[in-house]
């Protein structure tokens, strides 16, 4: 009826006096890769558990694929794949047996299960070690087996809690590649992380958690604008009279500030990517362009700035 895979309104979870999740309103559209960000203990995992019906909300509403996870958990869990932050397997069983158990719990007929298990193991690159006990697997292999485990049931929504934690850069890169493929197949992905640059690479939108509240939601550039004011930093190296270049750059629409950092160096803070306009402005003001660089906003600085602001507010 609507294209939201996840919808929550006023979702709240309290453990005694502690409010783990506070009045959460979140919508994730079909086919989107959404990143939940925040420091440890900010309510990301609790939110995920409520989405799966593994924890009952104290208040508020949740809809996952149009269903209520607290009342229709079986239908929800049949279509949602969940990879916990520390994914565990039965060490004495082989990778294949571990997946076979999951397939049986999902009620798959054994021939279908065998086919799917071969498929997913090949897909995550574990086909060679399919019959080895999981006890012999490295951390990275376990993570990939975790993905295979999620894919066996062919979910419409995949929820991953800290998927790249503890992976080496190569492992993390191939992991992100897998997430991109999932997106191409039209699977919605919700992932939580505090490794910001990785999240930034794959997520369409992110939500920033702070003490149980979702404080910022949006695409990374939008957030940058919201938090940093100006999202794009453009470095210019240009010969010419500073007196005429400076105002020319300043007058461009979308420019927030222009700083002169050296005799021929300028830093333009803008709300958009204004490289072409800046070049034109420099040339028309009689300058010679020598160098140009742009730094797109990154999540790390948004994150750092946001929490710095929060601290300042708290202190004052």
């Amino acid at each position, binding site marked *: *009826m*609507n294209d939201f895979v996840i*919808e929550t*309104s006023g979702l709240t979870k309290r453990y005694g006096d502690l409010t783990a999740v506070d009045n959460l309103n979140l919508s994730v559209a079909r086919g989107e890769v959404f990143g939940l960000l925040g420091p440890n203990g900010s309510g990301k*995992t*609790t939110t995920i*558990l409520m989405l*799966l019906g*593994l*924890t009952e909300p104290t208040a508020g*509403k949740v*809809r996952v694929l*149009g269903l*209520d996870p*607290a*009342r*229709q*958990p*079986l*239908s929800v*869990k*049949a279509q*949602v*794949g*969940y*990879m*916990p932050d*520390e*994914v*565990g*397997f*039965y*060490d004495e069983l082989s990778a294949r047996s571990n997946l076979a*158990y*999951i397939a*049986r*719990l*999902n*009620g798959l007929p054994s021939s279908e299960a065998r086919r799917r298990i071969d498929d997913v193991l090949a897909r995550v690159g574990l086909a060679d070690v399919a019959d080895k006990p999981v006890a012999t697997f490295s951390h990275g292999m376990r993570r990939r087996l*975790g993905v295979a*485990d999620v894919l066996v*049931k062919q979910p419409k929504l995949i929820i991953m809690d800290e998927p790249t934690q503890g992976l080496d850069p190569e492992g993390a890169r191939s992991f992100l590649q897998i997430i991109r493929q999932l997106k191409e197949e039209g699977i919605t992905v919700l992932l939580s992380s505090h490794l910001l640059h990785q999240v930034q690479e794959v997520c369409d939108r992110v939500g920033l958690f702070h003490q149980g509240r979702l404080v910022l939601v949006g695409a990374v550039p939008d957030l940058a604008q919201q938090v940093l004011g100006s999202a794009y930093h453009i470095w210019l190296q240009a010969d010419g009279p500073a007196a005429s270049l400076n105002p020319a750059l300043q007058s461009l629409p979308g420019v927030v500030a222009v700083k002169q950092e050296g005799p021929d160096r300028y830093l333009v803070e803008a709300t958009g990517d204004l490289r072409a306009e800046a070049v034109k402005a420099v040339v028309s003001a009689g300058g010679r362009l020598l160098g140009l660089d742009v730094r797109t906003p990154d999540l790390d600085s948004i994150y750092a700035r946001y929490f710095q602001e929060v601290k300042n507010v708290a202190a004052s």
Partner: protein
Amino acid sequence: MSLQAEQTRAPAKREGSPWTGLWAVVAKEMADHLTGGRMRILEVLIVLTAAGTVYAATQNLKATVGQDPFIMLRLFTTAQEPLPAFVGFLGFLIPLVAIALAFDSINSEFNRRTISRVLAQPIYRDALLFGKFLAGLFTLALVLTAIWLLIVGMGILRLGVPPSGEEVARGLWFLVACVFYGGIWLALAMMFSIIFRQPATAALASIAVWLFFTVFWSMLVRLIAPILSPIQIGLPQEILARAHLELMLSRISPNTLYTEVMFALLQPNVRSVGFVLPIQLDGAILGTPLPLRESLLIVWPQLTGLIAATILLFAAGYVLFQRREIRA
């Protein structure tokens, strides 16, 4: 908003059967039990005990073959110095096996961090817990049945007499009693595995309870009974009341219940497991066997007691498990 409209249409009860996925859990857990090293050790232990005691018993029984209509049942109950009877061994082997099967059933899922992955599948928690319990009970039943068949087979070979229908029926009822006696310890160990995060703690707690009932309970009963039912003048009523109280108290222990069931089922001439006053024996022909129906009637309360205790302990564990937060 659409969200609100949907909320009102959502069913009030949770959907689907709580037993979805039950048999998948049972199959997986039984496979684990039967291939695990722990069970192998216990199986060897039981088989050795059975072989030893039954061999000793057959030595003893060879003299009376032909005179005793229940020779096969005697295999279980005959003791030959220095070995006690096989049923004596079973009294503590069954709790041992049951505790070994269940003391790490739930906490190991938490410790291996498999619990959230398993519960993220379309099953309820009920199926996981009940599946694990059933798998334990089936494994126990399988082991006990195998031992039972071995003993009967050995008896036929060594004594040369096939068991009668009555003996087989009594033996099967005895098997049922054994399984539920094990069920109590299985449910108890499973409950401790939900309460305690560390498997070692759960195992210790289970063994402590077992020791309490096998060793200390009878002592305690002898301490408590005089306080609750003092003998002031020495009237026969007072002495009888004290004896009754002692018996009732000792029946709180599952070991007592099990022993009584065992006696009545395996020794057909047992007429009562409680007190018999001389006046009640008027007209009885002592030493004659009772039919199975009568023997069952004598220990029916004990048998249902064993089953009820199993169910109660499982229910307690079930409630604890449902309330448990899944996040590690």
